[in-house]
């Protein structure tokens, strides 16, 4: 099963146009568009954050985002998906990740959107560095699930 042709999966270095993305998944047969707008917060563990920088293993990140998209279509009765993560420097309040899911009914749209951001945060190789007045540090992240010890061989490409 592949993502629907109209699905959008991107890593971008410019501000994310959330209005256009939300509109891009909407079709006449849809009764709901659920969105998640993740934005740069001005504090972290009690410290004031000045700005953020994101980096990614871009080829693998896009592949993992594609996998999430495929899983959304197989698990939920949804129509279209847009999933975009921004990289580079982000100022406070700017959108770092935006997900939009359309569906004929609200429950699958909401459930799929939640599943998408939760899975992205656990499995997509993207890293956030937080810059404070007195230094910078990599954000605590999540360890992706470890694969089994006997993987199937995949040829180098």
């Amino acid at each position, binding site marked *: 099963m592949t993502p629907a042709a109209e699905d959008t999966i991107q890593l971008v270095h410019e501000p994310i146009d959330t209005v256009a993305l939300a509109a891009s998944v909407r079709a006449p047969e849809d009764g709901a568009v659920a969105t998640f707008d993740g934005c740069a917060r001005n504090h972290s563990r009690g410290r004031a954050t000045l700005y953020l920088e994101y980096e990614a293993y871009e080829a693998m990140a896009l592949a993992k985002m594609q996998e999430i998209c495929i899983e959304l279509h197989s698990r939920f009765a949804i129509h279209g998906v847009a999933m975009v993560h921004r990289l580079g420097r982000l100022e406070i309040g700017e959108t*770092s990740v935006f997900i939009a899911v359309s569906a004929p009914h609200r429950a699958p749209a909401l459930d799929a959107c939640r599943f998408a951001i939760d899975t*992205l945060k656990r499995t997509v*190789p993207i890293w*956030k560095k937080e810059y404070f007045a007195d230094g910078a540090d*990599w954000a605590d992240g999540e*360890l*992706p699930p470890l*694969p089994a010890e006997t*993987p199937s061989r995949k040829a*180098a490409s």
Partner: protein
Amino acid sequence: MQVRVLFFGRVREIVGRAEDSIELASGARIEELFARYRELHPALAAYRPSLVASRNQEFAPWTAPLASGDEVAFLPPVSGG
């Protein structure tokens, strides 16, 4: 055999570069590749429990054997979103 190694986040900062190409004995495992960099950069040792490995853009166990031309990365805990 030659493999390509990519570094991200804190690991990139410790190693001081984003990418490397390294000659390994045929059949070497990811764990042995990591050990080479741990010898060069002892600060990596403390982070080993919090890293996962990838091979050709798929998460891979540390015991996975490598082949010539493979692309390997040592990935810190991910923090996108």
